[in-house]
C-alpha cells in the first residue's frame, strides 16, 4: 500500500552537535593523524540492528560499516561495496557487482554470501521498525562470489535509497556475535575502544580496500551540554565543533586565525506538527492560520541566529525534487486572524508538547508568542526526549502541537501514514508517493513535487526551517563533510592541512 520505507524518526540531538577535536589543548597542540570528535548524544550500544537512535549510525555508518551503495554530498546514490549495479527495466531486479578486494576487520573477505546474509539478516534479526524497509525484498541470492541478485516484490526507488542507510550495512557472517560492543565492518575505520558515557575511539583500518584515510584515530567524545562544548572549543580543548546547537554562540568563534565555520545543509526539517485528528486542527483553516501567523524569518533569526533554510514542505535541498521557496506561506497575521474567525477558533487553548531539546524549546517560545498575537493560547509542555515524548506524542498522539526535527533523509512518507503522529489522512497524497516510488526517476520527481505542494496547501503541518549543518572547525582541518545527507558522519576524507 504505502511506500514501505519506514525510516526511523531519528530526531535526536545526536545530529545536532558534533565536535571534532585534536587531542591536548590549544590549536597548535594537535597531532596530524588524530582527531577527536565530540557529540552530544552518545550511542546506547554499538549495534544499530537492535538498538534505535541516530547516534549509532552517526558514529559507525561510513566509518566502520559500509553498504553496497552510498549517498554522496549532493544526495546522489553512488557505488559502495558494489562497484556497480544494474536495475532491470521493470525496476524489480537489481544485480550488484561486488568489489573483490574487500576485507572485514576480522580478516574475512567480503563476498556475495556476506551480502546475502546481511540483507536477509535485516528481515530476521532486526527488531526495529526500520527493518520493514526490507519487506519489499522477495529474495536475495548469490549469483557468484562477486555478484548478488535482489528481487523486489514491486518496483521501488526508495528501496535502493534505503540500501545507503544503516539497513544496507554489510556484516561479516562470522562477525555478528558481539555487535553491541565489537562491531565488525569493512569501513576505513574500526572501533578501538569504547568508554561508555565518555568516548568512542575509532582507529584506521589498516586493511581498508579504498583510499587510505589521513587520520590514524578518531575519538568521538560525548558531551551533555552545548555550553560546555562551546567553552571547550574556545579554551582550545577541541579543534572542531560541528552542528552547533545554538547558532547565536557563533559570535564566539569570530577569530578567523583560529576557526572556520562550516555552514551546510541537512535533511532535518523542523516541523511544527498539528494534530490533524483533533480540534481545532481538524479544520484546515486553523492549520493554515497557524502557517500565516508565524513569522518564519523572525523565528530563524531569534532561535538560530538566522542560520538555516526556510522551507515550506517536507523537503530538503538534497532531494532531487526540491521546490525551494514556492511551498512557503507568507507572514500575514491579519489573514491568520480572519481564518481563525471563520473557523470559530479564536482564543482556543492549545497544548504544545515538545521534546526538551534546546532547539525545540527555543522555537516553541517564539511560536507561542506569535500565535498569541493572533489569538491562540498556547501552553508549552516540555517532555523528556526521547522516552516521554515518544510515548506521549509519537506513539499515542496525545498532543495538539509539537516541534521536532525530522532528520531522516527522504522521509516524505511520514505524512502518508494516517497513523503517524501527525494523524494526517489524505489518500491522494499517499497515492502520489506510491506512484513516485514505482515510476522512473524522472516521473518520480514530478510526482514528489505535486505531492509536496499538496501537503503545503493542506497545511498538514508547518515547516519552521531546515536545520543547517553547522560546524566550527580548526582552520587547518580539511575535508569535513559540509552537508549532512545521510546517517553517518564520515571521517575518511578528513585531514589536517600543512602541518
Amino acid at each position, binding site marked *: 500500500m504505502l511506500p514501505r520505507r*519506514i525510516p*526511523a*524518526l531519528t530526531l535526536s540531538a545526536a545530529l545536532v552537535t558534533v565536535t571534532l577535536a585534536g587531542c591536548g*589543548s590549544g590549536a597548535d597542540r594537535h597531532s596530524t593523524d588524530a582527531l577527536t570528535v565530540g557529540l552530544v548524544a552518545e550511542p*546506547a*550500544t554499538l549495534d544499530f540492528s537492535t*538498538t*534505535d*537512535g541516530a547516534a549509532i549510525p552517526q558514529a559507525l555508518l561510513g566509518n566502520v560499516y559500509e553498504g553496497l551503495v552510498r549517498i554522496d554530498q549532493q544526495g546522489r546514490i553512488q557505488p559502495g561495496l558494489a562497484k556497480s549495479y544494474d536495475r532491470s527495466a521493470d525496476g524489480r531486479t537489481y544485480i550488484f557487482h561486488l568489489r573483490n578486494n574487500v576485507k572485514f576487520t576480522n580478516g574475512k573477505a567480503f563476498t556475495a554470501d556476506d551480502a546475502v546474509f546481511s540483507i536477509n539478516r535485516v528481515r530476521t534479526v532486526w*527488531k*526495529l*521498525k*526500520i*527493518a520493514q524497509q526490507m519487506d519489499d525484498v522477495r529474495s536475495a541470492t548469490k549469483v557468484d562470489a562477486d555478484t548478488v541478485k535482489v528481487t523486489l516484490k514491486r518496483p521501488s526507488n526508495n528501496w535502493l535509497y534505503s540500501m545507503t542507510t544503516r539497513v544496507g550495512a554489510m556484516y561479516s557472517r562470522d562477525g555478528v556475535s558481539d555487535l*553491541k560492543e565489537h562491531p565488525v565492518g569493512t569501513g576505513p575505520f574500526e572501533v578501538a575502544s569504547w568508554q*561508555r*558515557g*565518555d568516548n568512542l575511539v575509532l582507529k584506521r583500518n589498516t586493511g581498508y580496500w579504498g583510499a587510505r584515510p589521513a587520520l590514524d584515530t578518531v575519538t568521538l*567524545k560525548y*558531551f*551533555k*551540554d552545548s555550553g*560546555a562544548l562551546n*567553552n*571547550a572549543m*574556545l*579554551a*582550545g*580543548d577541541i579543534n572542531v565543533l560541528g552542528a552547533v546547537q545554538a547558532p547565536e554562540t557563533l559570535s564566539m568563534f569570530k577569530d578567523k586565525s583560529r576557526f572556520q565555520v562550516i555552514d551546510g545543509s541537512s535533511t532535518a526539517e523542523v516541523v511544527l506538527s498539528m494534530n490533524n485528528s483533533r480540534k481545532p486542527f481538524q479544520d484546515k483553516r486553523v492549520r493554515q492560520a497557524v502557517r500565516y501567523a508565524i513569522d518564519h524569518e523572525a523565528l530563524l533569526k531569534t532561535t538560530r541566529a538566522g542560520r538555516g533554510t526556510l522551507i515550506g514542505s517536507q523537503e530538503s535541498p538534497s532531494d532531487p525534487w526540491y521546490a525551494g521557496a514556492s511551498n512557503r506561506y507568507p507572514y500575514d497575521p491579519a489573514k491568520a486572524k480572519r481564518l481563525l474567525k471563520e473557523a470559530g477558533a479564536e482564543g482556543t487553548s492549545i497544548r504544545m508538547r515538545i521534546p*526538551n531539546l534546546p532547539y525545540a524549546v527555543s522555537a516553541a517560545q517564539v511560536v507561542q508568542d506569535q500565535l498569541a498575537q493572533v489569538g491562540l493560547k498556547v501552553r508549552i509542555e516540555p517532555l*523528556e*526526549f*526521547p*522516552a*516521554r515524548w*515518544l*510515548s*506521549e506524542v*509519537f*506513539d499515542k498522539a496525545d498532543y495538539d502541537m509539537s516541534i521536532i526535527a525530522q532528520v531522516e533523509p527522504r522521509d516524505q512518507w511520514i505524512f502518508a501514514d494516517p497513523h503517524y503522529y501527525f494523524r494526517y489522512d489524505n489518500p491522494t497524497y499517499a497515492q502520489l508517493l506510491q506512484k513516485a516510488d514505482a515510476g522512473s526517476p524522472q516521473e518520480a520527481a514530478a510526482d514528489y513535487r505535486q505531492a509536496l505542494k499538496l501537503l503545503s496547501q493542506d497545511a498538514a503541518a508547518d515547516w519552521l526551517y531546515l536545520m543547517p549543518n553547522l560546524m566550527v572547525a580548526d582552520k587547518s582541518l580539511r575535508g569535513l563533510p559540509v552537508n549532512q545527507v545521510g546517517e553517518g558522519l564520515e571521517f575518511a576524507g578528513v585531514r589536517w592541512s600543512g602541518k
Partner: protein
Amino acid sequence: MNHVVRRTATLLVSVVVASFVVFAFLAVLPGNAAEVALGTNATPAAVARLSREFGTDRPLLVQYADWAQGLLHGDFGTSYVTHEAIGPRIADRFAVTAWLVAGGMLVALLLALPAGVLAAAWHRTGRGALLSGLSQVGIAVPAFLAGILLVYTFAVRAGALPAGGYTPLTEDAQDWARHLVLPWVSLGLVQGAVLTRYVRSALLSVQRQDFMRTARAKGVRRWAALCRHGLPNAAIPVVTVLGLQLSNLLVGAIVVEHVFVIPGLGDLLLRGVQDRDLLLVQGVVVVLVVAVLVLNLVTDLLYRVLDPRLRSR
C-alpha cells in the same frame, strides 16, 4: 556499644524502607519500559515480548522483592535502555562523584579553617565583619552559579583550565586534576562559606571557656591560643556540620556535574530521568540515599568518639 548497635539497626531499617519508597515511587513512572527501550521503531509484538523479558508484566511486589534481592548481592539489574548491567556503571560513576565530593570538601576545609579562625580572632572588628559578610555572600551563591562564573573567568576568558569534561585519574593524573579544579572550587566555595560560620561560632564559644582564659593569661597570643587550644575543642560541632555538608555536597554534585559535564552519579541520574531508564534511576537514587544515611551514622558515631561526655551514655 549499645548505641552503635541501635543506630546501625536503625540504618538497616531505613535502607529497606528507603529502597521500597524509591521503588514504589518510580514504578508509577509513565512510559512502558519495553516501549522506551525499543524506541520509535518497535512493533507491538516486540514490546510485549520485551515486557515479559524484563519482567515488568509481573505484580509490583514481586518485582520489588526481585530487585531488592539483587541489590543485596550488588546486582542493580540490567538497564532497559542500554541492556547493560547497572551495578558496574554506578560503581564507575560513584568513584568520579566521590573524587568530586572529597575535593570539594577539602577546598571547603582549606577555606573555612583559616577564615573561621580569623573571623573569630577578629571578632567585633571591622575585618571580622568583612569576613562574616563575605561568608554570607558565599552562602548565597549557588554552586552552579559559582561554576558558571568560574568557567567564564578561568576557561573562557583566561583559557587556563578546561571548561568541562573528565579524564580518569588512572589515565593522566595531571589532566584529571586540571578537569576537577573548577568543579572542586565551585562546590567548595559555598560549603566553605557555610563552614566558616560554624568554625567561627564554635571558636567564639570555646573562647569563653576557662582554659582559653588561662592560656591567654599565660601570655599566649590570641590567635595562637585559638589555633592550639580552640580548634581541637571546636572540632565537635564542626564534625557534625561536616557530616551534613557531605550530604549536601553529594547532592550539589548533581548540578555541578551538569555544569562541567562530568560523568558522575548526578550525570547518570539525569540521563536516567531523560531516558526513562527506570532501573537506573532507582539504582542511583538508592545509592545516594544510602550514602546520606551512612554519612549521618558515621557523623553521629564520630561525634560520640570526639565528645567523651557522650561516650558513657
